[in-house]
């Protein structure tokens, strides 16, 4: 096993799949000659040439739509969005075209495409550059959505995403491209729709994904000192969601906290709580809690930005609330 950064793991997954399947190509702003705005596609132009690693104009709706058309005709595009904030310009293509094509055509037209890029807040980029898009996309049927920052998971899930015959959205984090971890060499596949127990525990289930997993781990370590044992579940895939892994954990701990970056109104955390309340009602010893961004656009000022994001304090308070401590 090699130690790779998140960006290297994604690069490896895309490169291996492009070597395996000539119909896979990568397109996006700055992906080729610049090696990617966050250097995720470093060296890929040299390896695959300009027909397979393609610099696009700044036309998100345009090149996302081009991806949909190419996928309908048998290619397997990977579309890099410099960040998902800008992909909002392409939501028409993603929601009205990619997600519904198979359904509307009665199963005739598949759209096997991956759209990937970082999302969420980075650092002091203000409101237009800091959005989490999970909740905006999860309620549209026809899409698979992956959200991870773990290098090994990212490699394995990216390979699955590229091979998947559906449109798969892949949510990364620009702050964590340089974070490293062990990544299996070669054919390492992680199936879409399977969550993982990041840390076993017995007192409370804490569901977290993407960069919130790191906060969850810090909080769990902190609470261990007080004798509170936190089980962390990372679903890795938001759609389809591995509900069983969450239900099983709640049946064991009897308590649930969902920790998510992004706004909390009608969020993905609401969906998880809804499913758990329905399926594990008798197992719950306390009403579930959610920790989310505050319901304001992201301010630029650093202190205010920290305040908006989920904090360790708020997460600990939520955990103590479900423990009645």
């Amino acid at each position: 096993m090699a130690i790779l950064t998140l960006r290297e793991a994604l690069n490896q997954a895309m490169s291996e799949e492009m070597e395996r399947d000539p119909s896979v190509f990568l397109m996006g702003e700055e992906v080729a000659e610049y090696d990617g705005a966050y250097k995720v596609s470093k060296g890929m132009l040299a390896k695959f040439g300009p027909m397979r690693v393609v610099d696009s104009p700044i036309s998100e709706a345009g090149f996302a739509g081009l991806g949909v058309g190419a996928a309908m005709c048998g290619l397997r595009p990977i579309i890099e969005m410099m960040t998902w904030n800008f992909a909002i310009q392409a939501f028409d293509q993603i929601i009205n075209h990619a997600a519904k094509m198979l359904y509307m055509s009665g199963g005739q037209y598949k759209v096997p495409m991956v759209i990937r890029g970082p999302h969420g807040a980075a650092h002091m980029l203000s409101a237009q550059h800091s959005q989490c898009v999970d909740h905006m996309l999860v309620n549209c049927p026809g899409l698979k959505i992956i959200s991870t920052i773990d290098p090994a998971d990212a490699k394995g899930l990216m390979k699955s995403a590229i091979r998947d015959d559906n449109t798969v959205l892949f949510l990364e984090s620009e702050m964590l491209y340089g974070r490293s971890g062990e990544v299996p060499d070669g054919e390492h596949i992680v199936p879409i729709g399977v969550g993982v127990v990041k840390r076993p525990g017995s007192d409370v289930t804490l569901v977290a994904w993407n960069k919130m997993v790191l906060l969850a781990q810090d909080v769990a370590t902190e609470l261990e000192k007080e004798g509170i044992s936190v089980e962390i579940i990372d679903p890795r895939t938001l759609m389809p969601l591995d509900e069983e892994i969450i239900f099983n954990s709640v049946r064991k701990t009897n308590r649930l906290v969902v920790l998510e970056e992004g706004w909390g109104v009608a969020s993905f955390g609401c969906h998880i709580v809804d499913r758990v309340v329905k399926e594990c009602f008798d197992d719950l010893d306390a009403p579930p809690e959610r920790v989310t961004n505050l319901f304001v656009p992201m301010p630029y000022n650093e202190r205010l930005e920290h305040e908006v994001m989920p904090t360790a304090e708020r997460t600990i308070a939520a955990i103590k609330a479900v423990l009645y401590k």
Partner: protein
Amino acid sequence: MTQKLSNQLLVAFYKEMLLGRRLEERIGQLYVQQKFSGFCHLYIGQEAVSTGCLNAIRKGQDYVITGYRDHVAPVVLGMDPGVMIAELLGKVTGCARGKGGSMHMFSEKHRFMGGHGIVGGQVPLAAGAGWKIKYNKEDLVSLCFLGDAASNQGQFHEALNMAAIWDLPCIFIIENNKYGMGTAISRTCSLSNLSDRAKAYNMRQAVVDGRNVVNTYNQMKEIVEETRKTSKPILVEIQTYRFRGHSVSDPGNYRTKEEVEKERSRDCLVLLKETMLAQKAAKEDDFEKFEEEIADKVDAAVAFAEDSPEPELDELYKHVLV
């Protein structure tokens, strides 16, 4: 177009451009010293565009909007540089109370509709200002700055079409600095003359040499008056160059040294200085005085910003809704 400007105007333009330049050099230093974070896109090299265009309009009455490379335009429009830097540092005295930062300067008082972080997103907003002007039968124009690469965006084309069919008094200004981040415009646009995009909308078009502030000002003056009179939009391509990378963290390796040196040899400040000396608008030692005067202004601006308080936490929920 070759019309001479008064000595007084030349001096004013020089000081304005010098202020923009020195402010941004200081901003670059503050960034490297980690006095603030986020993105920092400098405008160095393009100063003659702001000065030439914004002095051709009625400041404070005509509407102005731009993208994220937005430190200089509001200052040329009259914003206190201290208030601009305070915004950069995230202070509550900043023009957006520390909530907008580098990419989102705003000043309603100066009719500056902002810096915008989504490439091309500001262009339909400029059409909206044009619509308001026409709706109220006002004697004003709407000035929209965008980058060369932004003219590849769908929103740009939709906005131009609407401005054209409804005769909106909009002046769309492509500041062609030849690159969108690391990608040369020639690789993303099939036209070599970006103002030709106007043809698709049966719109007037113009090309301006944006290094020469005298030309820029004279040409823009005509364009603004024509637009005010006819309420017909126009697409202007202003040729310029950014001397630094796309942002402070971009070394700009996609450009050759020779190219950058060649472009720097046509520095708008140097060109204007030559004109002023030739026209005897100023003597050699006047330029030292200009530098001193501007250095004091920059120092005062930074001191004001650094001494300003951070926003209180309750600022978070202010301005989410009215």
